[in-house]
């Protein structure tokens, strides 16, 4: 915990993130370049044809959508238990990114669903629980903006984020628990054809690194904004 608190100090975070950011950003670009190159070089799937290329943007967006929520939940727990101010900033900074990737997973999924299932949308367990994730993000962001006192807003949002965490296992296991149009898990179980695995993994890494890059910049921005607000308060008093 001590190490975490040392680097979670805003000053240390600014120093460390400035050093790490260029490398993460370059790694993101390399993963996207390699992932897209390999993704557009795969043969069509014997069942899904060329729509298999949609997997390389749909699955990574889905992974980041859930990862971002996990990050918010961890930061919220740190905030509630240890009252660490940077964890609130980090949680808040991740929310719009999580919402964006959730929306992308839904849109790319719909565009994959139409040719494969014959419909853009169906109210089944996986799709509905995923839509709920988007509403959780939007509700979380709305709650942050609705409460003026930052400490109270942070507390309320942290509680909301932790309650909403229950949706993540529901999304994950929905394809096993209920009958759904959505296909079951295929990566960990080894059902995916090996030729598709490399581009998928590289694109997933690229999306995760992209999220980390943008998240770090957003936390850095929020720290500067907080300093600016403190200076303005000082000048006014």
């Amino acid at each position: 915990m001590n190490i975490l608190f040392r680097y979670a100090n805003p000053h240390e975070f600014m120093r460390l993130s400035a050093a790490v950011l260029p490398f993460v950003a370059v790694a993101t670009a390399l993963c996207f370049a390699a992932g897209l190159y390999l993704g557009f070089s795969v043969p069509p799937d014997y069942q899904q044809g060329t729509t298999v290329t949609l997997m390389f943007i749909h699955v990574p967006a889905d992974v980041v959508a859930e990862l971002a929520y996990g990050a918010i939940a961890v930061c919220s727990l740190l905030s509630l238990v240890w009252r660490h101010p940077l964890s609130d900033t980090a949680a808040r900074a991740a929310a719009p990114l999580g919402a964006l990737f959730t929306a992308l997973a839904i849109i790319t999924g719909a565009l994959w669903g139409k040719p494969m299932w014959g419909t853009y949308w169906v109210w089944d367990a996986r799709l509905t629980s995923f839509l709920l994730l988007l509403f959780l993000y939007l509700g979380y962001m709305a709650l942050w903006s609705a409460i003026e006192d930052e400490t109270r807003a942070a507390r309320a949002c942290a509680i909301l984020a932790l309650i909403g965490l229950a949706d993540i296992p529901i999304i994950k296991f929905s394809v096993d628990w209920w009958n759904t149009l959505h296909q079951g898990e295929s990566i960990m179980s080894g059902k995916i054809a090996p030729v598709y695995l490399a581009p998928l993994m590289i694109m997933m890494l690229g999306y995760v690194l992209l999220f980390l890059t943008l998240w770090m910049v957003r936390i850095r921005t929020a720290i500067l904004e907080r300093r600016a607000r403190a200076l303005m308060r000082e000048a006014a008093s």
Partner: protein
Amino acid sequence: MNFDMGAYGVYIWPAYGISALAILGAIVWTLAAWRRAKAKLAALEKRNP
């Protein structure tokens, strides 16, 4: 590389296009907010050294 997606292109290209636009938009928006915050803080620090 093969960009011929056949009849499924009408679903695949919009999905890639929307993803690319959203990601580029997020990058531009994030960097713009960073630059704005940096400029504002610099101006405030200049005014109240």
